[in-house]
C-alpha cells in the first residue's frame, strides 16, 4: 500500500510538472504577436494608471524615458492572484464560490509547503519538532489543512451547484466540467475522512511526507488516506491536461497580451523577431491575399491586389 501511494504521488507530480512545462513552452515559443493590449495597463506611470492612460498620451512619447512601474503592476497582480479581484468587480455572484475554491487550493499548497518544511527542519535541527518553531509550523499546517478542506469543498460544491442550476451556463457546461468538480469534491472528502478516521498508530501526515521525500516505506499509510492520496495525485496529474491549467495561461494573457505595450524599437528584439516571421510563407487560399505558398509575408504585404487586378 505504502509503495503504491508513493509511486502514485511521484507519478502525479511528475506528470503535472511535464504537463505544465509543456504548456509553458507551447505559449512561450509562439511568435511575438501584433500588439493587442488592453488598458488600463498597470505598469504605466502612476498618474496614468488611475484613468487607464498610456504613454500615447504624451506628445513625442518616443523621445521620453519610460519607467516600468513595478509597484503598479504588483498592485494589480497581488489582489488578482490572491483575491480574484477581477471576478469580484465583474461577476460578484460567481466570486463567492470561486474565491472559496481557489483560496482553499492556496491553503492546500500552503499546508503542503509547511508539512515539507517541517520534515526538512526536523531533519536539519535537533529538537525542532518540540521547539517553538516546530510547534508553530505544526499549528500552521493543521490550520491551513483544515481551511483547505473546508474552503475547497465549500467552493467546489457551490461551483457545482451553479453549473447545474444556472440556466445561463447550460450551453457552456460539458460533462467534463461536472466531472472536474466532482473529482475535487471526492478527493477532498476522502482525504478529509481518511485523516479524521485514521486508526491509531497510522502514519502521521509528516511521517508520510518524510517517507515520500526519502522513499522510506516504513510508514504505515492508512488505507483511506492512501486512497485519497492516490486520487489527489491523479487529480494533480490531470490538471495540466485541462483548462484548469489557467494559472499558466493567465501569466501569458496578462503579461504577454493584455499588458504587453512594448514599442517596436529600431534594431530591437521585436524588430529582429518580426523580420524572421515576415519570411514565413503562408498559403491562405483567397485570391486577393496572393499567397502561393512560395511568397513570403513581406512579399504579400508589399503587393497591391487592387492594382494588379486593373492590369
Amino acid at each position, binding site marked *: 500500500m505504502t509503495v503504491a501511494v508513493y509511486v502514485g504521488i511521484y507519478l502525479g507530480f511528475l506528470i503535472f510538472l511535464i504537463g505544465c512545462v509543456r504548456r509553458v513552452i507551447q*505559449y512561450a515559443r*509562439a*511568435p*511575438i*504577436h*501584433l*500588439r*493587442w*493590449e488592453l*488598458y488600463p495597463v498597470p505598469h504605466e506611470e502612476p498618474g*496614468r494608471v488611475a*484613468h*487607464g*492612460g*498610456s*504613454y*500615447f*498620451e504624451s*506628445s*513625442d512619447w*518616443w523621445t521620453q524615458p519610460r519607467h516600468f512601474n513595478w509597484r503598479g503592476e504588483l498592485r494589480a497582480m497581488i489582489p488578482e492572484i490572491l483575491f480574484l479581484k*477581477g*471576478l469580484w468587480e*465583474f*461577476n460578484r455572484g460567481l466570486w463567492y464560490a*470561486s474565491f472559496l475554491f481557489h483560496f482553499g487550493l492556496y491553503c492546500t499548497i500552503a499546508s503542503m509547503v509547511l508539512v515539507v518544511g517541517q520534515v526538512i527542519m526536523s531533519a536539519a535541527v535537533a529538537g525542532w519538532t518540540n521547539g517553538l518553531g516546530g510547534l508553530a509550523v505544526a499549528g500552521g499546517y493543521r490550520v491551513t489543512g483544515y481551511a483547505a478542506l473546508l474552503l475547497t469543498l465549500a467552493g467546489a460544491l457551490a461551483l457545482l451547484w451553479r453549473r447545474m442550476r444556472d*440556466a*445561463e451556463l*447550460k*450551453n*457552456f457546461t*460539458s460533462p*467534463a466540467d461536472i466531472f472536474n468538480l466532482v473529482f475535487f469534491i471526492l478527493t477532498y472528502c476522502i482525504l478529509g475522512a481518511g485523516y479524521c478516521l485514521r486508526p491509531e498508530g497510522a502514519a502521521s501526515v509528516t511521517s508520510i511526507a518524510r517517507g515520500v521525500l526519502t522513499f522510506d516505506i516504513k510508514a504505515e499509510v492508512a488505507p483511506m488516506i492512501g486512497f485519497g492520496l492516490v486520487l489527489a495525485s491523479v487529480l494533480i496529474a490531470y490538471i495540466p491536461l485541462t*483548462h484548469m*491549467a*489557467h494559472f499558466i*495561461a493567465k501569466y501569458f*494573457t*496578462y503579461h504577454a*497580451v*493584455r499588458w504587453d505595450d512594448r*514599442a*517596436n524599437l*529600431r534594431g530591437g528584439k*521585436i*524588430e529582429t523577431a*518580426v523580420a524572421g*516571421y515576415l519570411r*514565413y*510563407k*503562408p*498559403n*491562405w*487560399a*483567397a485570391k*486577393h491575399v496572393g*499567397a502561393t505558398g512560395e511568397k513570403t*509575408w513581406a512579399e504579400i*504585404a508589399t503587393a*497591391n491586389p487592387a492594382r494588379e487586378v486593373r492590369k
Partner: protein
Amino acid sequence: MKRELNIEEMWRVDREPLTHVENADLMPLPAPLDIVEKDRSWAPLSPQATKKYECGLDDTCAVSVRQPESPEEEKRLVATFLSGLDKLFMKENNWTFLQPLLLTMEHCTRCQTCADACHVFEASGRNELYRPAFRSEILRRLYFKYVKHGGLLSAWQHGDIQVNWPLVARLIELSYRCNLCRRCAQTCPIGADNGLVAHELRKLFSQEMGISAKEIHEQGSMLQLKVGSSTGMSPEVVKDNIAFIDEDISERTGIEIHTPWDVEGADVLLIHNAGEIMAWPENPGAFALILTMAGVKWTMSSELAAYDSINYGLWYDDAQFARVALKHAEAARKLKVKKIVIGECGHAHKALCVIADRLLGGDLNIPRESSLTLLRDVVMSGKIKLDAARNDFPVTLHDPCNVVRLMGVVEPQREVLRLICPQFREMEPHGVNNYCCGGGSGFAIMSGLNFPDWRFHVSGRKKLQQVLQAFSDCLEPETPKYLCAPCSNCKGQFRDMLAYYKLWDQNRILYGGLVELIVNAMADVKPGFIEWEWR
C-alpha cells in the same frame, strides 16, 4: 421573440433564423425613447434576399453570402472553411495573433463574466445568440475537434460539434455581430478574448474563403489600394476638395488657411479619415486652422492611400491591413516627416499607432501619435486664444474604443473639453470602461439590406442610452446639445442613429468632433463656427 437557444442549433440544416428579436425584448431606453410601442419597427428581410443570401442566423444579414447552388458547392465551401481553420492555428499563416488565440481557445472557463460587459448582449435583452461566449464556444469546439483532432474524449471534455454548410454560413454572419470593442476581454478573469475570436473568424473567412462584408473589402480596403481612398477620391480629387474646404473655412472664420501638400521635411504628416473630407468638411478645415494658428509645420500627403487614414483590414484581414499600414508609413518616409499624426479616427489610431507597430521596421518605423495629444498641447500652450463662453452649451464626450480601451489615450481630449466647454458632462461609464457606439468594426459603414435596423436597435442601443442619460437634464429642444465624438466611424453611427430616432429634430442633439469645438471657442475666429445644422 427571445427563446432558449442551444449551440447544436447552429448546424440545423434549414435556413430559418435561429432567433428573432422584437422591440419588446430589447433593453429599455430612457426618455424620450422609453415607450416601447413607439419604437421604430424593423424592416423585414425581403423574400428575394432570404432566397438569394444566407440569412439563417437572425433578423438581418450583414455579409450577404450567396446561397450555394448545389450540394457539391456546399461541400467545397465546408472543405475550404476547414482548411482555413487549420491555417488559423499555424504560425506560418497566423503568427500575428497565434499566441492570444491559443490562450483564448484553451483556457476559457466558460464562466460568462464576459456576458455582462457586452453591450450587444445586454441591449438585445440578453439574447443567447449574442452572448459573447456563444461564438467563441463554437470556434473552441471546432478547434478541439478539427485542429487538435480530438475524439470522443475531447468531445466529452469540450463539447461536440458538427460541421456543415449551415453552420459555416451562420458563423460568417455571427462574426459580424460583434463590434470588436473588447470590453468583454477587459473583464475576463482569465484574459480570454471573445473580441479576438470574432476578429480571427473574420480573417479566416476573408483570407481563405474570400468572404467579407463588401463595404469593408471591395468598397473599402480594395478601393483604397486602387484609387487611394475608400471614398473613391483620387489624389487630384482630394486636393480639389481640400482646396474648397480651405476656401470655405477661410470665409467662415475670417482667417486665411491653405492646407500644405507633400511638404518634404515637415514636422507632422497629418492623415485624416477621408470620410471627414466628404461628410464633415468642417473637421479637416478646423484641423487646418488650428495647426496654422499654432504655427505647426505640417503637411498632408497625396500618395496612394496616404490621404486616407482608414485601414479596414484591422477588422477582417491581416494582408489588407499590412498593405495599407505600409502605404501610410512609406508616404511618411518619402516626405521625411518627423512624425505621423492621426486625425479624428479611432480605428486609424489603433491601426497605425498600435497594431501596425511591430510590422513597421527599419526606416518605416516612423513615430506615430494621436492628434488628441497634439491638440491638447496646442490648446494648453496658449498659442491660440480661447473663449469658453462660446461653447456654453451641454457637451458630452463619446470615447471611441480604439482610442481609449485599446490605446490608452483618455485624458488629452478631456483636458481640452474641461477648458473650453463649461457644461461638459461625462457619460457613465466612460474612459477605458466606455461602451462602443455600435458602429465599431465596420458596422457604421455597413448598410446592406436591413442591417442598419439591427445596428440602431441592438449594437448602438447601449450608447444611445448613455447619450440620453448624459443629456437627461436638458432634453428639451430649446437647448442645443453637442455630442463630441472624435472618430469618423463613431460619427457615422451617431449621424445615422440620431436621425433614425429623430433626436436632432425633436431634441436638438448634434454630434461632431473635438476640433470643431476648439475652433468654435477661438477668440480670433468669427463666432458661430458650429452652425447647429444637421449633417
